């Protein structure tokens, strides 16, 4: 991939959200969490598309949970970070830190 081992902005958002949520990370909670933290109302389709892409990259793993009644009897798909995913977040963080360290405070 042309981006090398670095992640896209939305990928970082999603991965960080997974870190926040820990064990309770599935479609709806992820969507709400992103909404809450970034103020961006993202479509559920975009989240799944991103998660699936991250899964293909081996950064994320998913498993099916138990179906519950409030979901019309449909199962949840839980997502969790793989060690590689955690590394990727850390790397991105470090990269941004390096980039921004020397920057003057952004004006207005």
């Amino acid at each position, binding site marked *: 991939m042309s981006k090398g081992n670095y992640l896209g902005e939305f990928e970082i958002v999603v991965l960080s959200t997974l870190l926040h949520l820990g064990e309770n990370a*599935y*479609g*709806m909670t992820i*969507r*709400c969490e992103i909404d809450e933290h970034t103020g961006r109302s993202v*479509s*559920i*389709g*975009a989240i*799944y*598309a991103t998660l*699936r*892409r991250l899964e293909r990259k081996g950064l994320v793993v998913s498993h*099916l949970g138990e*179906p*519950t009644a*409030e*979901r*019309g009897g*449909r*199962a*949840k*798909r839980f997502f969790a970070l793989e060690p590689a995913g955690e590394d990727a977040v850390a790397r991105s963080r470090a990269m941004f830190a390096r980039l921004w360290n020397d920057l003057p405070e952004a004006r207005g």
Partner: protein
Amino acid sequence: MLRWATARADRDCVAGDLAEEFAVRAQRSGPGGARRWYWWQVMRSVPTNLLTGREVQAARRSAIQLDTPLRRGDGAMSNMLQDIRYGFRTLAKSPTFTVLTISTLALAMGVNTAIFSILNLILIQDLPLRDTDTLGFIYSTNAQLNSSQAPVPAADFLDYREEVGAFGDLAAVDRGASFTLTGTEEPVWIEGFLATANTLDIWGQATIMGRWFTPDEDREGGERVAVLSHGSWERRFGFDPDIVGRVIDLDGYPTTLIGVMPKEMEFGSLAEAEVWVPARLNRASASREDRTLWVIGRLAPGATLAQAQQEVDAVRQRIIAEEPDLQGPWGAIVYDMNRALAPPDTWMIMFMLGLTVTFVMLIACSNVATMMLTRASARSREIAVRAALGAQRRRLLGQLLGESAILSLAAGLLGLLIARASLMGLIWMAGENSGMNIFGMVTLDTTVLLFTLGVALLSPMLFGFIPALRASRPDLNETLREGARGSSGGPGGLRGRRFLVATQVALALSLMVVAGVLMQAMAKNRNYDPGFDVDNVMTMRVDLTESEYPSGVDQLQNFSRIRATLAALPGIESVTTMGWRLGANDDPIVARSFRIVGQPEPDAAELPSGFLNVVSAGTLGVMRLPLLSGRDFTESDNADSAPVVIVNERLVERYWTGQALGSHIKLGTDDRSFEVVGVMKNIHSGDSSNPAFPIIFAPLAQNPQRRMGVLARTSGDPLAMTSAIREAIWSVDADQPVADMRTVHQLIEDAFAAPMTLFSIFVAFAGFAVAMSAAGIYGVISYAVSARTREIGIRMALGARATGVLAMITRQAMMLVGLGMVVGGAAGILLGRLLSSAIPDVGSFDLPSFLGVLAVFAATTLLATWIPARRAARVQPVTALRSE
């Protein structure tokens, strides 16, 4: 929808996520907001998913290409994929064009299909009958009453069944029966149809559960059985699987339910039936006078309808010879199914509709054509450059076609969705307005759907192909130079588009002229004066059961108790009972032949006939139906006094040679001689094909019957009195069903609901066409004008005045639209003529709507010319010269 929104593997989880958050949101901000959010989520997820899919494919493809570097992707298949991908990209770059093209086609397709499907069902019912070629329908005719599709008397039916050999089998249905269903929480009045035992057989249908009745049960004294309609099984018995064998109380008689009808048989008026009961016709009680039976027969092998008609005529001749006084004016006619079930003007309406569908589609197509041609000519330079750089013609064509294919498919899919959605919308609207139950079975009409889908799919291909052909074989020099000169697509392209503009104007205008005629007809129906005071009258039907009120005296007493109880209610001014509630089109009314005593005997065929309505004393006063001479019925017109009638103006004009008031008539088989004690004014039904009914009123007290309408004139809003009135009638007899409570206004409105719906749909249709073509006109003209920026600049540079240039440009555009107006106006007037011959009493031309449309088009043209022209005239000539 979710199918497009998510990858297959995730669909379930996503649906679950959405459902969960939906529930949370529904609690927080109400179901409406949550639903909007839900759909917003789904809609927004579609493009993401499609893009992801493509991304994956692209990745896969690039992998293949890396593996085989020598195959540079020029296999046909990969070319096509490339073309399509290229199409997506170019379309995404001009979203306005894409959205406009797709939505124009999809809207035209969707709306067209939905509307046509509904009208199709109203007009030509696609009946679930078997072998319709060998079916024949017998009707009574009466030239005196202008009726050609009246039901047949039971005695005639029995004669036909015995004597007409051309029919292998004849069945009869009496649609006018109603029953009181008791034993449930409150007495209910349900519509039932009486039918002969062979009815289902002739229809070629079978019950879905249990069985139909046997000839034994269809005989006087046979066991009491009934077959439930599918709808009734659903509504009243909740699909009870053990319904067969259950005993219900019909009109006080225990009746065994033996079967359930198939759902397919709920079409048209048959949908009203809740139960089917054996007709039990027999010679002894069969009437020659009461026309109640709808007769359908299956031709014997080898027999024709013409033979059947001959034999039926022979039977009629014999009957008339036996009873000339009674039967003279009545004949019988055998129809095939198309004639029998279609209203006489159907072909005309179908023709108009077909025309409309075609016109709307044509307008949509020409809009699309215009947009695509414009786009193609705007891109001709790009294509020329690519051709000059060595692109193969095949590839250029392929790319343009790939674009068209995407447009086609998107328009087709969206069109299907719109068709479904607008059909639901229309059904809902129609249900709200008229409560017409036939809409329950509307589905999208396949023929029209395929037609419009075909057009939606083909037209972008076609209109993409023509410019593609032209553009892909460019005279490179010419195009490049032309481009440099700043013309757009050359004079040829513009001429084509101008022609399209003129055509659109013509099509839309002619539709609107027709719509104007229909609006006139609607206004007429809405504003007609029925001849009596229709305000503040609540009506209902009270049908007394035979078992509880066997004698005429009981029936009379009960009705007068009801009248007295209602009249005592506060808020009710006066009350009357009538067999046929004025204004209703579905109450039973009987036709009677009569003779005027003292007038010379007319030929049997010209025996006077009129509709007999049995009413209680003081009816004219309650209905505020003016008397021309004589008096209203009073309480002293009773069983002990001399029989009397009141006739209407129309009847008198038609049949009386001398003074009507004071003369006597003999009614049908009745031995009594009735004195005419009053002449009342005509009652008009809004249906303009029946200007006024010939009507005879007779007092209930002298002609008791158990099925009556009750009408109460209220001082305030009659609807507010509904439950008070019902309670009052139940206080007289708690087992009495009070049915069909409607105000006179509602009766009249409902009587015209079907044609009105039809008309208003058509008008909406025409309006849609006008809006669409206005948008198209605006697009073409404004583009054409702005393409002349350079020319305008030159003219200005050479000293032309801004007003002069504006005037010139406007004049040219108006000429174009004017041409369309002339052609469209002429065509519209012709169509209007045609239409007014189908709908009597409507003009063929409606000036206001015509002028309105002219104004819309003129304004559109002016705007489309003026805005870009002014912009062009304002710019510095130098800038203008450099433009493009």
